[in-house]
């Protein structure tokens, strides 16, 4: 039996190092955020009262879990992938009944002893496994639309449950599975269409509707003009261009205003608008109007960009070399909200400046590239798909979280993997990574 030989055999040590370094940086950052002068840092590290000491305990617990995962058999994961996925979904449904409300989202299950579990976090693992399992099936031909749709459904199901729990950020994470699916042969057009759509959405927020309509029309006319030769050969081309033009115009004219005014909550619209530097007028928002009528909510006030502003100030004031360990005034003065969780990157940026940030980025980049390298050396599709799912999830978290702190992305509650405070999140990413390491250690086996 393999596991009886030596658990360290075949384990990718650079990964473990990178993982440990990031966890250590996380604890240090949380320490910077929580530190107050005069208290004995050593005792408070041991004491378990402060967040950094809690995080330290979480890390210790995660080390145990990691060892345990390395001790298991890879086949376990393939065998139970679908079952765990079903279990995960069940847990998420269960939160609707036994869940606990924390910060406005009823997505936590109390575990006793003050700890709460967020099933949506764990569901990421299960979804990754289930997707890997599905794509590695013998009968799956991913070039067929039917299987693409099933794969999509696997990823979307927990996302929908997350949205129902008011965890928009977590739901967005599931879109990262697109990257893994792309690697497995999802047509590139979907990604291209997706990103073009994103550009259109942003453009319709920034540019005045009529101006944008003129720009879109101008692009369409130019395209037809340049494509008139090809059009002789291909009759459908002009029709396609016109249809795309109509869809774009309709989207920017009607769909986007409808979504912002009728689907989103006022604060969500405001956040997205504030990201592109605009004010959203909440009196257009149907939901906030309804609430106002019901008397639950006061009239909307100034745009909600305090978080981003303070976050940018913290990072920007770090300058080239930073203010030094524990010397950040923004951090010490607690100006950045949620700094130990979602905005942990700001404490790093303030204390260690541009140099510190770049070093941190390089460590993260190394981790992601390492996982891609591991993915590509797998013999079994299951392991490869799983590895790509891991890298997609981590990358998505990282990109959204950091972009949000530097003002590139609206504020959605997405933690920085391994660094942000939070037991559920740390445990999730530990399990994600160590299952990958377990699979990688057995890369000679073909798993289905």
């Amino acid at each position, binding site marked *: 039996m393999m596991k009886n030989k030596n658990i360290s055999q075949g384990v990718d040590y650079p990964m473990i190092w990178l993982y440990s370094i990031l966890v250590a940086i996380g604890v240090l950052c949380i320490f910077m955020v929580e530190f107050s002068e005069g208290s004995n840092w050593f005792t408070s590290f041991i004491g378990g009262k402060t967040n950094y000491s809690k995080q330290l305990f979480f890390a210790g617990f995660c080390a145990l879990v990691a060892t345990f995962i390395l001790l298991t058999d890879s086949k376990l994961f393939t065998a139970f992938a679908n079952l765990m996925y079903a279990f995960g979904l069940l847990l998420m449904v269960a939160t609707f009944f036994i869940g606990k409300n924390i910060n406005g989202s009823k997505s936590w299950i109390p575990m006793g002893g003050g700890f709460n579990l967020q099933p949506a976090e764990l569901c990421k693992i299960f979804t990754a496994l289930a997707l890997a399992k599905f794509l590695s099936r013998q009968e799956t031909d991913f070039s067929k639309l039917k299987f693409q749709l099933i794969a999509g459904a696997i990823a979307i199901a927990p996302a929908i449950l997350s949205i129902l729990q008011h965890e928009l950020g977590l739901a967005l994470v599931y879109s990262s599975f697109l990257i893994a699916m*792309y690697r497995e*042969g999802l047509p590139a057009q979907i990604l291209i269409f997706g990103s073009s759509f994103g550009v259109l959405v942003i453009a319709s927020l920034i540019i005045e509707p009529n101006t944008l309509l003129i720009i879109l029309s101008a692009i369409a006319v130019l395209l037809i003009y340049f494509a008139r030769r090809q059009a002789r050969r291909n009759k459908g081309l002009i029709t396609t261009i016109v249809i795309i033009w109509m869809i774009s115009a309709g989207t920017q004219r009607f769909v986007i205003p409808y979504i912002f005014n009728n689907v989103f909550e006022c604060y969500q619209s405001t956040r997205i608008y504030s990201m592109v530097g605009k004010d959203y007028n909440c009196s257009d928002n149907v939901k906030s109007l309804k609430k106002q009528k019901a008397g639950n909510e006061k009239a909307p006030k100034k745009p909600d960009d305090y978080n981003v502003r303070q976050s940018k*100030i913290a*990072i920007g004031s770090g300058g080239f070399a930073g203010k030094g360990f524990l010397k950040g*005034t923004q951090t010490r003065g607690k100006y950045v909200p949620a700094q130990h969780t979602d905005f942990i990157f700001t404490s790093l940026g303030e204390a260690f400046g*541009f140099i510190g940030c*770049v070093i941190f980025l390089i460590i993260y*980049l190394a981790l992601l590239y390492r996982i891609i390298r591991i993915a*590509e050396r797998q013999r079994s599709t299951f392991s490869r798909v799983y590895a790509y799912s891991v890298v997609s999830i981590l990358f998505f978290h990282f990109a959204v979280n*950091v972009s949000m702190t530097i003002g590139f992305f609206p504020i959605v509650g997405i933690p920085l993997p391994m660094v942000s405070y939070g037991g559920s999140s740390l445990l999730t990413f530990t399990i994600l990574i160590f299952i990958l390491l377990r699979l990688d250690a057995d890369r000679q086996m073909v798993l289905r």
Partner: protein
Amino acid sequence: MSVFNQSRGRIIQIIIGVVFIVITAQLINLQIFSSQYKLAAENNAIYRKIIYPDRGIIFDRKKRALLENTISFDLIVTPSESKGTDTASLCAILGIDTAEYKKRMLDLIFKNTRVRPSVFEPLLSAELYAKLTENMYKFPGFVLSERSVRTYPFNTAAQLLGYIAEVDTSYLRKNKHLGYEMGDYAGMSGLEKTYESILMGQRGIKRFIRDNKSRIQGPYENGIFDTIPVAGRNLFTSIDVEVQQLAEQLLQNKIGSAVAINPRTGGIITMVSSPTYNPNVLTGNARRKNWGRMVMDTAKPMYNRAIKGQYPPGSTFKPLGALVALDQGLITSDYGIGCSGGYGACGGVYVRCEHSNAGHAANLRLALANSCNSYFSDVFRKALDNKKWGNTNQGYLKWKEYMNAFGLGRRLEVDLPSEDKANIPDTSIYNKFFGGARRWNSCSVLTLGIGQDKMTATPLQMANLMCIIANRGYYFPPHFVDSIENEQIEDTVLMNKYRKKHVVTNISDNDYQAVNDGMHDVTVYGTASHLKIPGVEYCAKTGTAQNPHGKNHSLFVAFAPKDNPKIAVAVVVENGGYGSVAAGPIASLIMEKYLNDTLSAAGKATAERVTNMNLIPQAIKNWYTRKDEERAARLAKLALEEAAEKEEAENVKENNKNNTEATLEQGSKPVGNKKDSTDKYKIKAALLLSEDKKKRIGGRAQ
């Protein structure tokens, strides 16, 4: 299948790489090229606490402090921390109702945010302070904070000293480079304003780190950027506080002004503008109550007539008319004319003279002593028609040049803000008035020669003119501040203009002697012969300026002693009639007090008589009566409303009681009650009114 999509791993790597590069680019933008974030972080986190230095003191010539600093307390509140405050008892102590409390709170939050401390009640009285300190434990979020406040032990010289007040936004905008901040106090008028930079001292700044709720975390960088406050420097003035008090007393119930200058130095001994006010009514929390009333007062108690009032100098101008002709060599002191009761050389314009006996204008001395209008009309024409300057127009310009040299028609640059230059009209004015440069001559403006026509002068200018005559040809620009504590080079630059001797004429001592003798004769047998200063011979000139709006203005200029002048005085009393009646005694008493240090028995009697003289014009008296009536009506109405309200509350209470006790005998009881209390309130209103009236009249008088 994996073989086919091998390249896609590479593409994903590239995508990830691109995202990292974009993030790095934004970090470069934020951390290296955007300096504003550093500033924003400092503004967030560094709390600058200003340590106010003591303001400099202003002393009089005998080193008596005209004003002092005392400590007053502000009640400061941080709205976000004031949750558990016992609002009811706080309101009871401050004497406000809860609605007012809420209104003030909202106002402060609106102006200065919820988390910053703002002034809830400024400048508490001693009594309030004592009550509050006992109860502070009930008011979390409230603190008492020290502030230095001016007091005026002599209750005098309000308009000279000026007042300090909190700076407003326009002040901050105008004085950006001086580093004032909201909540600072600065001199707004008088010496407080002119010498603001010296009196203010240097504020110290302590820097603290604060958190997002404005709670202080500790000193910033261990205080290496902190600065220590430097106390404001003191000013030593030439004001004599006793003379100032006497002059204010003498001018009470009159509208007018008195200025006394030491001719040897140009130092102003006293400067009064009446009506004035007690400077203590504009300090501390009294200010809020009194400010509006002072500004609205029709007699303008805050208006300094000594440097802003413009009066035709009348006969007091005559010595100057003589000096101009003497300096140009047009006459000598022996020059005389025959006057038989008027000057008729101009045909159409006839100037009447008070005297018609022969020889009353036989020489300069006699003409001055008798204040002969014909003589000075003649002398004036000589100056204007002087052949040397070509024509009347040029002659007038030369004459105007003389006036300016003697300090008329221009600012004397006294060290008070907003001095007026009064008026010596330019030729263009007359050209316009008469319709061309050739359409007027010395006859057209003849009455300028006796200080009438379009010419005006401020009392300060008149007093300065006396200095020139007393000094026989020179003066130092009039000023209050003799020296500054720890004088520095830039202060010396500032003060040098007051230490520079201005020589005005080149007239021989002999001719000056004639002018001085003439003015001395005024006090011996002339218009001021009834005004004596025990043991002192002095020179004077009375003036009665025609006032188109009412009774003539009474003017008096003088200097004393005759041979070694130590004080030059100018007094103007509006609607005071002859110069020797109202202005004369005031001037002579000022000189007596200054030279003899005390008043003789006769002097005291005169002082009392003059003090009780009421020369306020009827129109202004009527204005006060009307205001008082309006006030009475308002007070009575308020009192009635209050009574009615109270009555209602009582009735409700009583009804409740009655309802619960289920008795039916309340009958006429409430009605009787109502009548009683209404009467009570009427009486109260009347009392309030009379008290108020007393206070106000007192304030005006001081």
